């Protein structure tokens, strides 16, 4: 799975895309010198590779005050970008933020360094439900940073009732020309399988065919395949119903109260972004210190206040105001969450198959 585009305020996205490119360039060249292994103590620096708008406003400065370590943050926009960069050899990153499925994939590819849990005492702050996920048994490589769930963002005044099923985007002409689907192939396949009553994982070949036929049938009613900027399409009234992440919709709901969000009754796909140390990180000690700091209750609350994504950090959540903790968009009701699953990494061939199916749908 990969989330394309930017978390957060989408109007900033074009600046980000270019900014990220520029930072990436200068950064890589700067790193080749910085990456020299220091004998003994590490120099007080850290290279953090993160998503856009995915950190608290003062978090990095606070960390510097607490530890003296200077954090140099650069941005990536998709997990694939992160994977492609590390695949070619770690250019000097100390901490990266891959999503669940990519933790498995990068772990298998030997791109991640095992974490030393003794150096991360704040692990105790994490909600126990997040401590032993299938994608990283025993949290060998990753610490959870946020989690997210896909659902339907919609314009309330244009809906007939609450659109509480994937049917409205996958299998119905009701909102003809007002629908935007996520362009990510694996997410589309998995959510379609969920709609058809199957798990998001291990989709059998007959069902893959069935999904392809269903999406081809639905395509004439679809306005656009969006690159995770569905909240912008919704806000600009280009479409009335989109597949999007809860955090993205929560951000635009603050500005437009005609927008709603629901996790469909069939259940949905969960994702979790995690903190990892890539193999070859020049400063692993600082990296552990930084991860530990991000899992601190106070620091975690500061981050959640800015980014409005659900946090797996129970201690941080306890410090948050009611309108965050009890926001049904950020934390959907338990009965809805019970039907959601993580997408597992099922090998490269599976990703290629899904990509080809969606290519066929879009070419049809």
């Amino acid at each position, binding site marked *: 799975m990969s989330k394309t585009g930017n978390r957060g305020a989408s109007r900033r996205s*074009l600046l980000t895309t270019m900014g990220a490119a520029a930072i990436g360039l200068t950064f890589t060249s700067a790193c080749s010198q910085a990456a020299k292994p220091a004998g003994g103590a590490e120099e007080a620096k850290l290279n953090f590779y993160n998503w856009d708008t995915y950190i608290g406003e003062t978090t990095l400065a606070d960390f510097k005050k607490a530890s003296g370590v200077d954090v140099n943050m650069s941005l990536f926009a998709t997990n694939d970008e992160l994977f492609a960069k590390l*695949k070619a050899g770690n250019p000097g990153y100390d901490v990266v933020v891959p999503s669940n499925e990519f933790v498995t*994939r990068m772990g298998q590819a030997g*791109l991640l360094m095992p974490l030393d849990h003794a150096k991360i005492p704040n692990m105790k702050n994490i909600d126990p439900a997040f401590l032993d996920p299938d994608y990283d048994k025993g949290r060998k490589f990753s610490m959870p940073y946020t989690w997210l769930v896909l659902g339907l963002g919609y314009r309330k005044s244009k809906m007939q009732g609450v659109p509480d099923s994937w049917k409205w985007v996958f299998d119905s002409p009701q909102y003809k020309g007002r629908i935007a689907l996520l362009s990510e192939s694996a997410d589309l396949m998995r959510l379609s399988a969920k709609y058809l009553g199957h798990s998001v994982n291990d989709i059998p070949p007959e069902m893959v065919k069935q999904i392809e036929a269903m999406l081809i049938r639905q395509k004439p009613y679809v306005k656009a395949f969006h690159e995770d900027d569905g909240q912008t399409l919704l806000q600009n009234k280009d479409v009335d119903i989109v597949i999007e992440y809860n955090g993205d919709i929560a951000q635009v709901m603050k500005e437009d109260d005609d927008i709603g969000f629901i996790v469909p009754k069939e259940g949905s796909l969960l994702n979790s972004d995690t903190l990892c140390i890539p193999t070859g990180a020049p400063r692993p000690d600082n990296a552990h210190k930084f991860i530990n700091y991000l899992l601190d209750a106070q620091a975690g609350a500061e981050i959640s206040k800015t980014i409005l994504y659900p946090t797996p950090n129970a201690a941080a959540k306890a410090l948050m105001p009611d309108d965050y903790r009890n926001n049904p968009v950020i934390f959907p009701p338990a009965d809805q969450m019970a039907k959601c699953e993580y997408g597992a990494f099922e090998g490269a061939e599976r990703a290629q198959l899904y990509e080809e199916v969606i290519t066929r749908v879009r070419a049809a």
Partner: protein
Amino acid sequence: MEQHWTRAKGAFAAVFTPTVFWLFAFFLIPLGIVWAYSFGQNDGLVDIAITGTFKNYARVLEPLYLLIFVKSLWFAFLTTALCLLIGFPVALAITFASEKTKSWLLLLIMLPFWTNLLIRTYALMAVLRTEGYVNWGYHWLWDRASGLMQAAGMQPLGVFTPLELLHNNFAVVFGLVYVNLPFMVLPLYAALDRLDRSYLEASLDLGAGHLRTLMRVVVPLALPGIASGILITFIPALGSYLTPDMLGGPDSQMIASIIERQFKRANDWPFGAALSFMLMYLTFAAIAIQAVLNRRAPESR
């Protein structure tokens, strides 16, 4: 006086070596690596084994991908044709403008290059979208017209429906024409500006009309310029990625997006490399056709 290069070998080498090095180290070798990938297969998640297989090319030739190539070619053709249609009169007008106006007009043509393509595309989205500037203006006119008709005792116009301008194939071709038009106008202008005006006068004096002079004298003489204009519009349009991705709808998939997804989401670099090289072969074909045309055309002088 000019010297033959063989007589100044040292100077020639000094100028030429860095260029050759640059070309090899940063263009030919990386390109060669990607070319080698196109004959390889994935070996685990990170490695690619070059096995000399043609499997990737066989997959490129499947109807699914061939049809996407055909669609991309069609978009590129349409873009080029429209650019030529719009660009030729513009280039002609610049040629016949006064010296002072000419430099201003050329500046206007080049102005878009000063802004990043991504920014221009976002701006275009703001113009075209459902609540964008075009629909905003159209809505305003609609309301005025409706009001006037009511004042004149007629039935007012019905409910306003915005134009669907974004997220469809129209938006893609519109965006591609907008982006590529300067590439067409500049070579056309270069060719037309060199034209000997006395030919035009002779043609007009000898009784040919304006249209006939244009078609029988101007166009043949400007043919090399037209050909290079077509080429440098067609090739980038064929491989364009940003425009169809951002302006297109569910039907606007072009080949560059497929290539991007092979390198990223699908993590299938060998197949992505084969698709890229298919695009390169098509580009070479286009250049070859242009070279043939150029040879056939009379020397423009």
